[in-house]
């Protein structure tokens, strides 16, 4: 088959045009009309689509030369999908980095903050936040900036239920027992407490009780050569189990998944719900307050806290400057208010104050102060180890069900820790 010169020229021109448009479309590198479009990836709880859209709106208004495309993945899928997408060369310009072992897993894909066009923004964050952020990366090389911190476990209580019983918010074991007894006497079937029975959260609860015994316990096993098989762990776990044994907590919560536990509280079927501080935004939606997990004495109450969300820039991104500008906006600028006012976490940026009118009642103000106090002064870092938390949490539940002793659980946790699978 033969082609005329004209046909060949036309085909060559069409091919060249296709190639050029293909490059422009695929790369998306060049700013169009002076606007740079960046791709931002996160998971559904960090801080969630509705809030992110408000953040984007605020940041786009402040930086009209930046447009943000947001991709949200389910939290359960985020770690494998985001890591694999980075490896596959997906165009991601801003990445939410989950603190913990995953941050170290993806650090090779990230641009060190010192290489960002606005790398000096590090100075805008509190010292504790930067220290915690550095702990997530090899040799402390900061590869993402902190956004906010959360803590766990903490309680949200229904003030109306307590008021009906004539009780104050319980902060000690005895006060909580009094609440449980009063609810039982009332006979309305309201549970004293609900909480997720998921293994990871039962690990959080147990460690909160352990932190009341030895605030340094978790940091010592996480960062130093501390042992799970210790008196502090056994005592803390025993104290937690005792709450179920003596009827302070109802074992009916131990088969509730996350949603069921929260829904039961929202529907007034429980007086208190334990969860992470990321659920504390509820205090803005009803007559709810925040309390720490009860301790033997109120002054022992504590939780573990850590950064919950960090933002990084993939080294492969071709729009690093725009990405850095957006991150600055979301973590220290106009993009802070949307998530901070939803009480998603305590901002890492220094000297942040909630806008006037965010907290409208004394109870809300008191609760927020409690949160800030607890998260700013944690017993240990909440720097969990993925599947290991599930393993330890499964043991915690066995102790609560009476099929394992706290001593056995402590020994097994240490053995699992040493096994080398984590």
């Amino acid at each position, binding site marked *: 088959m033969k082609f005329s010169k004209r046909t060949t020229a036309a085909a060559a021109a069409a091919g060249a045009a296709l190639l050029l448009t293909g490059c422009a479309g695929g790369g998306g590198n060049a700013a169009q009309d002076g606007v740079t479009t960046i791709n931002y990836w996160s998971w559904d709880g960090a801080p969630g689509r509705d809030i992110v859209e408000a953040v984007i709106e605020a940041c786009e208004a402040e930086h009209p030369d930046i447009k943000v495309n947001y991709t949200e993945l389910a939290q*359960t899928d985020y*770690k*494998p999908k985001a*890591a*694999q997408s*980075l*490896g596959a060369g997906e165009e991601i310009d801003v990445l939410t980095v*989950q603190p*913990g*072992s*995953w941050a170290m*897993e*993806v650090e*090779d*894909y990230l641009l060190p903050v010192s290489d960002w066009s606005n790398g000096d923004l590090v100075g805008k964050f509190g010292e504790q936040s930067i220290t915690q952020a550095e702990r997530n990366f090899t040799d402390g090389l900061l590869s993402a900036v902190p956004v906010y911190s959360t803590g766990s476990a903490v309680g949200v209580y229904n003030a109306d239920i307590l008021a009906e019983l004539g009780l104050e918010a319980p902060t000690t074991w005895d006060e909580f027992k009094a609440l449980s007894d009063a609810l039982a006497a009332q006979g309305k079937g309201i*549970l004293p407490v609900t909480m997720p*029975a*998921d*293994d990871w959260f039962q690990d959080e609860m147990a460690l909160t009780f352990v932190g009341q015994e030895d605030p340094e316990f978790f940091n010592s096993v996480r960062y130093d050569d501390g042992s799970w098989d210790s008196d502090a762990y056994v005592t803390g776990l025993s104290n937690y189990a005792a709450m179920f044994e003596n009827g302070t907590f*109802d*074992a*009916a*919560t*131990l*088969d*509730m*998944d996350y949603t*069921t536990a929260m829904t*039961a509280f929202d529907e007034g*079927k429980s007086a208190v719900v334990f969860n992470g501080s990321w659920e504390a935004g509820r205090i803005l939606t009803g007559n709810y307050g925040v309390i720490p997990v009860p301790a033997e004495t109120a002054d022992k109450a504590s939780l573990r806290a850590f950064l919950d969300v960090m933002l990084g820039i993939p080294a492969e991104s071709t729009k690093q400057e725009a990405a850095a500008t957006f991150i600055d906006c979301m973590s220290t600028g106009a993009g802070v208010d949307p998530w901070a006012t939803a009480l998603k976490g305590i901002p890492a940026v220094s000297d942040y104050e909630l806008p006037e009118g965010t907290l409208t009642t004394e109870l809300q103000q008191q609760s927020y102060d409690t949160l800030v106090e607890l998260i700013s002064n944690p017993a240990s870092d909440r720097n969990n*180890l*993925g*599947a*290991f938390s*599930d393993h330890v949490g*499964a*043991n915690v*539940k*066995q102790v609560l*069900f009476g*099929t*394992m002793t706290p001593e056995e659980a402590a020994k097994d946790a240490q053995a699992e820790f040493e*096994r*080398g*699978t*984590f």
Partner: protein
Amino acid sequence: MTTDTRTRKRRRRSDWLVALVFLAPLLAIYAVYYLYSIVFLGQTSMQRIGISLLRPVQVGFENFALLATDPVFLGSIVNNLVFAAASIVVALTIAFFIAVALSTGVRGRKLFYLVFLLPALMPLSLVATIFGSMLQERFGILNETLRAVGLGDLAQSWLTTPGLAYTAVILVFCYLIGLPIMYYTADLSALPTSALEAALLDGAGTFRIMTQVIYPMMRTTHITVILALLLGAFRGLEQVLFSTGGGPGDTTEIVGTYVYGYVNSGGKTIGYAAAASIVVLLIGLVISLAQMFATRTKRSAR
């Protein structure tokens, strides 16, 4: 060499070529999606590596050694076998009976087919989630119903008592009997009617025809059902993940949930999960070989 022999050889070569052309796309897909995956899995199982697949550390057979000493992993294999065994028993009895009963032309059989097949066609995650929520101690519909009809004493902690949780997972596995019913229904239509007619003429009753004529005649279907359920059990995940989550403790853990936990860990656990997957793959291979052996056509029978 005679002309005939040469022609036959040429034709055979030509047949091979045609076969190869037709098979090429499938072989290419197989090479990309199966062989590569298996090689990748084998390679990863010898490494300490995370989900980003960066900075692998070669550890030889260490992951397999760790697996071999993990009672949870070994327990999860046993659980898989037990859950498979329970579903096989139900398939070989109840599913067979249902399939035969429906094949007799009973009124409303299309509705019954729908009732039995629907669970097998629905997403397993949905079925398991509904089961899980139904069995919750405080707000589950089962206990709520028991309390409502004055049988509150029978209300149990279905998901947190080891024996009950185990039974609950078995029920979820057995609930999905739609697949064996389909197998039996398809093969029943191919049964030679002469044997059934002879049995009828000899005065055999319905139950006797079912158990002593049809049942033995469906030997190959039984084997297919057994091996399909056995293999299916090792591929299971949602049945447990969304009902008991493998708990209480590790009571209902299966290999699917075990591997899933390590894949989603976020740490350097992908090599370990790959090693566990290789073990499961080998178990599946053994089962498949058993299937090939059991369903092979004997030379003498050809």
